[in-house]
């Protein structure tokens, strides 16, 4: 009985995007384009689209913050409810549509969620890209930034309430939220930090690894919820993963010791004649490791979102609700798999970060 109830809850979650796309499908003049819909979901936006069609649906319009000699703050509604311009590409002569801001956004245009300054009151296109228009610095609270805030608040509430439990109860057996998080803390401290950094040096890296783990994990899970507080492809955004990997790289380089650099510039046991080849390889190796971290998290999470959306899209491609019998169970299965991937990728990111830091702080033992 219980399992049936769970199934219904999960089913209703998964079928939710179905409803929102279904209403989008009512727009008869526009053909349903799968890759456009998926890419639209996977990328960042200045609005949080809740349901309904592109023009008549319900969205949360997020604030746009532009720095263009002066700071300008206004609602993104000024773009989405602004003028829809169809311009011709200068090279391919294909029609391209963009949004021209109204009100406070006057003088700016938005193309593929990027904001440009209008030049002679228009955007110029070449080969499908904006050409010749200046991009002001865009510090907008976009969909991903909002999701970032929500994720951070959830993490803060959970972890700080756990800390408060210990503060008020002392070193006792954990209860409630502490019971849930403490084993993870212990796993990260023992299996990740102590095992891979070791030598008694791991203590100062444990907070970083814990933060990385919970940040990635909670944001991954938040991204799997198809409705409002979730659904943003935050950890599947290359900026986020790039930043996290950059943090690991900086931490690795700052904690590196002589032995680490000796391994790069004078790898033991390598003949001198090979040095001109080895040194560049080792230097490139410093950067490929965080690069792989970036790509791994980005591609895993984005891939998961794409697969779920593509499976749901089968219904709309075939324009037949009966396909739901195939696509919904498959999407359900992938969603469950993605929950596993969510924790696995967080674990892997922390584990590999610990490995890189461990290599940097390792003492010579030859």
């Amino acid at each position, binding site marked *: 009985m219980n399992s049936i109830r769970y199934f219904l809850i999960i089913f209703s979650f998964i079928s939710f995007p179905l409803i929102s796309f279904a209403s989008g499908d009512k727009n008869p003049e526009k053909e349903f384009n799968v890759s456009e819909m998926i*890419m639209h979901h996977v990328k960042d936006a200045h609005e949080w689209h809740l349901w309904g069609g592109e023009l008549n649906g319900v969205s949360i319009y997020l604030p746009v913050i532009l720095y263009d000699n002066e700071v300008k703050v206004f609602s993104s509604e000024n773009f989405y409810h602004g003028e829809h311009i169809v311009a011709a590409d200068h090279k391919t002569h294909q029609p391209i549509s963009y949004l021209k801001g109204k009100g406070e956004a006057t003088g700016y245009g938005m193309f593929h969620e990027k904001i440009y300054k209008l030049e002679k009151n228009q955007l110029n296109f070449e080969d499908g890209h904006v050409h010749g228009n200046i991009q002001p610095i865009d510090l907008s609270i976009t969909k991903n930034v909002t999701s970032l805030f929500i994720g951070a608040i959830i993490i803060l509430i959970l972890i700080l309430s756990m800390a408060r439990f210990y503060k008020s109860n002392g070193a006792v057996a954990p209860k409630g939220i502490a019971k849930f998080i403490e084993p993870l803390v212990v796993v990260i401290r023992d299996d990740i930090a102590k095992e891979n950094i070791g030598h008694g040096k791991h203590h100062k890296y444990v907070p970083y690894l814990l933060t990385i783990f919970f940040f990635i994990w909670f944001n991954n899970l938040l991204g799997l919820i198809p409705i409002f507080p979730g659904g943003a492809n935050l950890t599947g955004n290359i900026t986020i993963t790039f930043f996290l990997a950059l943090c690991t790289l900086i931490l690795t380089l700052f904690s590196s010791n002589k032995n680490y650099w000796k391994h790069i510039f004078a790898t033991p046991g390598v003949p001198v004649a090979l040095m001109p080849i080895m040194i560049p390889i080792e230097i490139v190796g410093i950067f490929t490791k965080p690069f792989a971290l970036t790509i791994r998290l980005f591609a895993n999470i984005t891939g998961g979102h794409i697969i779920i959306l593509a499976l749901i899209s089968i219904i709309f491609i075939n324009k037949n609700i009966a396909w739901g019998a195939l696509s919904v169970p498959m999407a359900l299965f992938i969603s469950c798999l993605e929950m596993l991937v969510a924790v696995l990728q967080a674990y892997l990111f922390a*584990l590999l970060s610990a490995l890189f830091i461990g290599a940097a702080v390792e003492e010579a033992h030859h």
Partner: protein
Amino acid sequence: MIYGSIAAIGAGLAVVGAGIGIGQIGGKAVEGIARNPEASGKITTTMIIAAALVEGIALFGVVIGMLGAAK
């Protein structure tokens, strides 16, 4: 359209490579654990790291494929 198809083939090939690699890793890890069950914790960690490295390479391919599809 042709970009998308070629990208799909590329992504598929990348997945084949990763599948073989991760299959090997998983199989060998199971063998190792069967032979020496006490070392299962250590083997599992090593297996996950190795699988992650293989998967990382495969994902490069998938990302390139996605880029092609997004064009």
